[in-house]
């Protein structure tokens, strides 16, 4: 990827972020500097080096198939932006796409 041209508007659109022209330019600069740090790492000769999955050795813990009690519905819906008859209500994602483009 060309680090000078990180596709900020494209990524922002995929995440449904509405960025101003000024923000786009600022983020483009920041991404370029972050990605160029990585491209410096890319120049290292890594032949024979095992991939590092995690900086601290730990293994994935699996849960036994024992269900817990689910949370109280009212408590869970308290944080929802909008509720309709025990459903969370959200604007259609397709609609927000059309608004943006």
């Amino acid at each position, binding site marked *: 990827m060309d680090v000078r041209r990180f596709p900020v508007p494209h990524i922002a659109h*995929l995440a449904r972020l509405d960025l101003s022209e000024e923000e786009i330019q600022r983020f483009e600069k920041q991404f370029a500097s972050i990605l160029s740090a990585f491209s410096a790492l890319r120049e290292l000769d890594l032949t024979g080096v095992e991939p590092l999955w995690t900086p601290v050795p730990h293994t994935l813990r699996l849960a036994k198939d024992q269900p817990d009690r689910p949370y109280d*519905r009212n408590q869970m819906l308290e944080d929802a932006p909008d509720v309709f008859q025990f*459903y969370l209500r959200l604007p259609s994602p397709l609609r927000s796409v059309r608004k943006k483009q």
Partner: protein
Amino acid sequence: MTAEFEPVIGLEIHVELATRRKMFCGCPNTYGKEPNTVVCPVCMGHPGTLPVPNEEAVARAVQLGLALGAEIHPFSLFFRKNYFYPDLPKGYQITQYSASILTGGSLQGVRIERANLEEETAKSYHTETGDVLLDYNRAGIPLLEIVTHPDIRSPEQARAFLEELRLLLIYLGISECDMEKGQLRVDANISVRPVGSGSFGTKVEIKNLNSFRSVEHALRYEWERQAALISSGGTVEQETRLWDEFQKETRPMRSKEEAEDYRYFMEPDLPPLQLSRTWLEEQRAHLPELPEQRRKRYREVYHLSDKVLEALIADPAYGRYFEQLAEGLSRPELAGNWVAVHVLRVLKAEHLSMEDFPLSPDQLRPLLRMIEEERISHSAAQEVFEEMLRTGRDAASIVEERGLEQVSSDASLLPVVRAVLDAHPEIVEKYRRGKTGVLGVLIGAVMKETRGRANPQKVRELLMRELETS
């Protein structure tokens, strides 16, 4: 036109795993509960929560892998598939992307490309005003995505493969595969090419397939559509089409406003999934008898006809019932016939599962033993069976009460046989002149005299003996 073009078909199957809890949180794995009553901060994607994979879901995937002869990877990874849709509360789905737990293997000659562990999305409903209503009960149920190679060459083969895969999943206890409940979902991709060609055409993906029958119909429709298109000089467009069950046609899906761009990256909250050799061996030890192994055993041990065999294989519970019923009978194929014909007829008519069938194998067996011992005729047995279902009474008492026991003794039958011979001297005469076919008339007369209770085999013997000697 389809004669000149052969279809090249691949399938993508999503199966909900029948675990007790969800894939990454402690919520019970349920169906049909009140909206948003089986949720927690993890499956609703609250910030700061962490996923913990369910060991049983991993075990189920491995068991399927063993059954398919797949390569089971003791080291696999989880990824985030990012897309913006409210049925994914986190903004991404955890899946395995390019580091699957299973690759390879095959079923009915169709090669499996891979199978990935994933999580279900929430159920969403669209309102007239364009809003989305969400029920997160389903979010986070363990899901296995199974992808085949494009090895299938006809719609019928696709359906047969799916039927066999479903059977395998049910035998393994991986899923109940109820398509109406969305426990098993199928997408198909199909391209066509001139018969004999080794290259691949442009493939079309078909979604909204609600039954194996619609898979078959949609593939046939699409095969014909693509063949006609190419024959008339057109080109097939790479697209996703939806099957319309009412119009019996596929239609292009409203094109997405942007190309799919899921920005996969490794799930930072989950280290690699590593499975030890001993753990994998334990899964192998847990494997039940699989459909193909059961078919083989039933053929060898019970000598069942193919038709009876397939009826008994269709549900593992049918086989269990049959085997218990056959125990202690000298003709196990009689038990096979009775389950395949009479028991299954009742189950289908009453929409019952085997577990709900009112007669246990121990209750039904005495009736079959009476048939074996020729104490009752087949038609009498059916009458007794109906009465047992109605009343739950035992076979012997119904037979006795209704006087259905076959009469086989010389002492009871000989007087009737002699009376019939005396009453039909002209038929006796015909028989003696070599027209032995008239024996049937005499047997019929004896059966009528005994109101059907005489053992017809015994009647034949006695009649012949009397005709030869007197």
